[in-house]
Structures are given as C-alpha cells and as structure tokens.
C-alpha cells in the first residue's frame, strides 16, 4: 500500500466543522491535511444557473444520497426509519445544500437534565461557546436583527434578510395571536461582505448558491484556511482509522481519486464526517485494541442518534406572495413553544421556521401530492390557484437522546469500495409524536390568523434527516460519553471528533452554527494544550 508523508493533523471530511477547525488551527503552522470523499462544487455547475434547477433537486442535487447516487455518495440503509438521512458529500459538505437558517442554541439547551430532568447536561455551556458563536458569525457572514429577548445579547455583522410580502403576511399572523416571532439569523449575506457578493433573492438555496451569498464553507472558511497553508485532498474516501501498538490513532487507510488504496499517517486525527459518517467510520475501524470499533469502550458509538423531527404545514392564500423570491429557508422564526410546559403533554419544545414559497415544479408536485392538482382539463385552473399563493412553515422539534435510536453497520449493504454502509435504527418517541401534533395544530392556527384559506400537513416530514446528532456524544465520564468536554476521545488521546456526533442533546434549532462554534472551541482548546495535548 502506498504511504503518504506524515502530517501533524489529519482531518477527515471537509464540511462545516472541518473548515472551521482547519482555519483556526492553521495559525499554529502545523502541517494540516484534510481529506474529503467529494469534490469542489463549481458555482457554474450549480443548478440555479439553469431552467431545470428544480428538477435537479429531485435527482443529482437531491438531499438523500440514496436518490442522488453520485460517485462520491455512500448508501445509507434508512428503510426502517420514518425520517430519511439527508447530507451532501463535497468540499463544504451539507452546507452546499442547507438553508443557512443559523440560530444559536439557547443557554438552557445546554442544561436539559438540570432544567427538565430529561436527556443529559452538556459539559460546556453557552457562555463558554459565546465567543466562538461571535467569531463564527463574522467568518460565515451572519445576517440578523439583534435584540431577540429569547437570547442573551449578541452582535451580528449584517442586517436581516428581507421579510418580503410573504414574511410580512405570516408575521401578521403571529402578531394577531400575540406569539413570539423574530427575523431569522441567516448565514446569508445581505450586503457585500469580505469579498462575497450579496444575496440576489434567487430562491435556489437548497440546490446551492451560485452567487456565493449563502455561507457554505467552500466560500467562507476554506479559501482562508487554504491561504493559511492547510492542504485539502478531494475524492478520497477513508476506509478505516488505524491504531498503533499503544492504541493511539496512527493515520487512515483511504481510497484515492483513482481508487488506489493508500495510507496517510498522522500525529492527530480529527473526524468531521457528520453524525452518520463518523460512527460508521469508528465502527468500521476495528482492531485488537478496539474490537467493538474505535473509541467505543463506552459502547456508545452510534447510539443516541437524534434527528429533528419536522412537521411542514403550508397554507393557501388568496393573494400572490412572491414566495419564489428570497432565501428559501430564512425569513422569520418563532420560539413561542420552545420551553417545556407540561400542560401540552410533552417535555421540551419546538421552533417554527417560516419558509418561502415554492417554484413552479415544486408547487405542482406538492399540489399533486395534496390532491389539489389534477391532470386534464382542470389542470391549469388548479395550478394558477396555487402557484405563488402557498406559504407556510416547518416546526423543528427537539429530539431527545435514546440509545435505541442508533447507527450500526449494515451486514450486507456496502459502498463501491466495499465499506459497510450505515444502517439507521430510529423510531419517533411518544414525546416527539405529541410535540409534532401540538406543532401542527399551532401552525394551522397561525396560518389561519394570517389569512390562509386552507392548510395542508406533512408530519413527520420524510426527507428531513438533515440534522445528524448524538452518535459520539461528549461528556466528562468515559462510561457515558465518547469524547471529553473538548472533543478528544476518552479512549484514544490523539483522536478528536468535531461534527454533530458529539451533541449531547439536540435543542430545537438548526445545529450548524453550534457545530461550528464547538469546532472553533475545540480548536482553541487544542491550541492552548499543544504542549500536553495527549496527557
């Protein structure tokens, strides 16, 4: 097997957390190499440049790797889960396709056990992460309106995304009910910023942003990290993390762009492969030191998988809303039902995120699914009643950790290199089901208050496994967690995990901002402890 030159730090995966950590560590002048199974996505190749952009969201830019089936994708057996796994494999990872809705966790989200007696408390708190949230806002280019009383004071570098007719319409619904709403924090630049051009409201966020206004890390952290000397090697798929006689990580075996097996030695290995890919790789890395998978003496690798169960509730309005314009998933949000109120019949809570409307193809396919759009003579009348008249929201529900929700290795399914595919075991808890039902009723209420004449529900939303969390969680006790309070594996002192796997609980907001704040915090801890990193 070909052997590459040893590097100081090897990062596996080039998504949200990897880019942030690589950029931060680069100032140490260590030799840092990142290897990624996907490739760069060129702006000119993104679907938004062509008329078939919506169609490509159903094929080669689909959320699910099982539908997309690009060469860089690996299959995921999620056939037994009500929520399908969504991810993207490229430089930038899933930030290429994400909505860039960019809220922070709230302080209480780190103390769920103390506050509500469920889940676990995190070994870090909001105050510890706050400076890294601030730094991340600068690096990613976060737009928003300061002053939301749901959060401690925070500074954001850019003004919020426009509400537009649609946002103003739905905000009025929240107003009528007296419910909390606030313009979303969005990793979308509303003004030219650090060499990037401002958002042009094209509405193609979920198939990538050719403008570069959406903060995917291929246009934020990576260019700066590369300028600082980090190296990035694409189209390389890691098969296993190797360990030496002392049980320390020694490097990785990977397949290069030509499919050739190679060995990359490293002094420090960092995993940033998301909440599915990281446990998959750990479980596939068995050795005499770790017969049950690397860093898995606790038995918790792959366990406590959390998604955010989503409900989508859409309303049909009489007037046109210009919903096809503007950042797709960023408009306003509400945390009216965020905190526990046991009278509702469940613990913890959810956020509402207002969506913009659909493009023509999405409108028609959604309408068909709802039984509103027939083929034949009445087709056009039905479409004209719907197109640009649909608006609504998703409820993003806090998922609580359960060991039975987990990632294992599939005994049969493998990727093209013969590496076992991940298999998802997941069921919606009773608590999540009650929360979804409550959210659906409240969403209908607010849409009707905003003037919707009909509402339509999808709950749980199937292709909504965007947020992959909890499968190598952090904690101080090696018996009940996989990594310590600064991301280092309890069992392997030169192996770090920095993606959503290390989340202890899920909160009820999109996780990317917190994933990156944690990655920056872990990088900071590594820099502070360089002299005794492995002690």
């Amino acid at each position, binding site marked *: 097997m070909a052997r590459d030159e040893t590097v100081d730090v090897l990062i596996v995966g080039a998504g949200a957390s990897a880019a942030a950590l690589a950029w931060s560590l680069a100032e140490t002048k260590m030799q840092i190499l990142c290897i990624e199974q996907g490739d760069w996505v060129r702006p000119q190749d*993104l679907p*938004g*440049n*062509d*008329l*078939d*952009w*919506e*169609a490509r969201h*159903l*094929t080669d830019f689909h959320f699910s790797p099982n539908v997309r089936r690009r060469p860089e994708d690996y299959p995921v057996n999620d056939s037994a889960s009500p929520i399908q796994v969504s991810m993207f494999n490229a430089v930038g990872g899933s930030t290429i396709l994400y909505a860039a809705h960019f809220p922070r966790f709230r302080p209480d989200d780190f103390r769920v056990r103390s506050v509500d007696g469920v889940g676990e408390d995190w070994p870090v708190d909001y105050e510890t992460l706050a400076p890294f949230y601030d730094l991340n806002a600068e690096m990613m280019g976060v737009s928003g*309106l300061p*002053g*939301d*009383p*749901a959060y401690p004071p925070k500074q954001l570098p850019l003004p919020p995304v*426009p*509400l*537009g*007719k649609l*946002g*103003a*319409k739905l*905000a*009025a619904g*929240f*107003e009528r009910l*007296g*419910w*909390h*709403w*606030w*313009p979303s924090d969005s990793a979308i630049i509303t003004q030219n910023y650090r060499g990037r051009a401002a*958002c*042009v*409201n*094209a*509405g*193609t966020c979920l198939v990538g942003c*050719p*403008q570069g206004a959406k903060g995917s890390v291929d246009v934020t952290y990576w260019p700066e990290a590369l300028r600082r000397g980090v190296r990035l090697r694409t189209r390389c798929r890691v098969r296993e993390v190797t360990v030496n006689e002392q049980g320390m990580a020694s490097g990785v075996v990977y397949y290069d762009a030509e499919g050739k097996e190679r060995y990359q030695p490293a002094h420090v290995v960092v995993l940033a492969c998301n909440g599915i890919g990281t446990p998959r790789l750990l479980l596939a890395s068995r050795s005499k030191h770790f017969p049950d998978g690397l860093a898995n003496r606790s038995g918790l690798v792959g366990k406590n998988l959390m998604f955010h169960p989503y409900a989508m509730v859409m309303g049909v309005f009489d007037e046109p809303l*210009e919903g*096809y*314009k*503007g950042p797709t998933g960023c408009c*306003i949000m509400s945390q009216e039902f965020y905190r526990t109120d046991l009278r509702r019949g469940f613990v913890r809570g959810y956020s509402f995120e207002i969506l913009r409307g659909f493009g*023509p*193809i999405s409108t*028609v*396919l959604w309408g*068909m699914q709802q039984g509103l759009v027939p*083929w*034949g*003579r009445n*087709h*056009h009348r039905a479409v*004209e009643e719907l*197109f*640009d008249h649909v608006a609504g929201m998703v409820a993003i529900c806090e998922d609580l950790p359960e060991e039975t929700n987990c990632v294992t290795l599939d005994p049969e399914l493998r990727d093209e290199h013969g590496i076992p595919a991940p298999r998802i075991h997941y069921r919606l808890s009773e608590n999540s089901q009650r929360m979804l039902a409550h959210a659906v009723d409240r969403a209908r209420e607010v849409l009707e208050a905003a003037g919707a004449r009909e509402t339509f529900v999808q709950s749980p939303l199937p292709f909504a496994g965007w947020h992959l969390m909890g499968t190598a969680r952090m904690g101080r006790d090696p018996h009940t967690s996989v990594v310590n309070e600064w991301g280092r594996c309890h069992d392997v002192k030169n192996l770090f995990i920095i993606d959503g796997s290390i989340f202890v609980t899920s909160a009820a907001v999109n996780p990317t901002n917190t994933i990156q704040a944690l990655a920056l915090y872990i990088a900071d801890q590594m820099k502070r402890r360089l002299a005794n990193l492995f002690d």
Partner: protein
Amino acid sequence: MRTVDRSNVALSAEDLDVLAGVLDTLIPPSDDGRFPGAGALGCARQVAENCGRVPGLLELLRSGLRELNHSSVARRGEPFHCLPPDAREQLLAEQSFVFPLVIQAYIAYYQHPAVLEALGLEPRPPHPLGYRMSDPGKEPAPNA
C-alpha cells in the same frame, strides 16, 4: 427514425407521437390560450429522456403507450393521438402508467420558458440576476 434509447429501451417515432398525445391530455392547452399543451410544446422527447433515468420507467412507458394505442385503435378505430380530447382523457384514465408519467410531464413542462412566461415569471434561470423583492409596505415590528 426518431428514437430515445436508455437502458436498451427505445421509443419509436410512433411511440413519440402517442406520447405527445398523452402529454396534451395530461396538460392540455388552457382555454384562454395562455398555456400551451405539453405535447404541442414538444415535451415528449424530454419526458422520454427523464423516464430513461429512472430504472424501469422507460420500459413501463413504452409498453403502456403501445397498449394504449392498441386499445384506442381497437375501441375507437383511430390512433390515440388522433382522438378528440374527451375520448383521450377517458382512455388515459384507465392506464396504470399515468402516475409515474405525470410527474415527469410536470417536471418537463414547468421548466419551459413559454410556461414560465404564462405563469408571469421571467423566462430565465434564477441566477445570476435573481429577483427584486417588493416592499411589503410597513413591516411589522418583531414580537418578543
């Protein structure tokens, strides 16, 4: 002969004529003339290509089109695409391949510039120009 061939399945010129008739039945021209029929718009070739990318779908489409046309000739004495609209709609409603086909028909039709214009949109991709958002008037102040 015009053919579309993916996965060793080809549509003949006759298949494509029937397909155009099917598309004009699924998405007929609108009464006010603003929206063209999907067949007349020339979506058949693209629909066939899109079907070729879904395993088994082009084969299903080809056999469905042939069965449909056979049934049309046997029961009405004319090829499907020559029947009047009501008769086409009635015959098509009996076919099992309509559901997967109609999805592909919508995808092809609703990205066509003529259809975007009929919907009131500019007939261009969203990028690079994007869109100017209207001022909604007095925006409500956030509610804490």
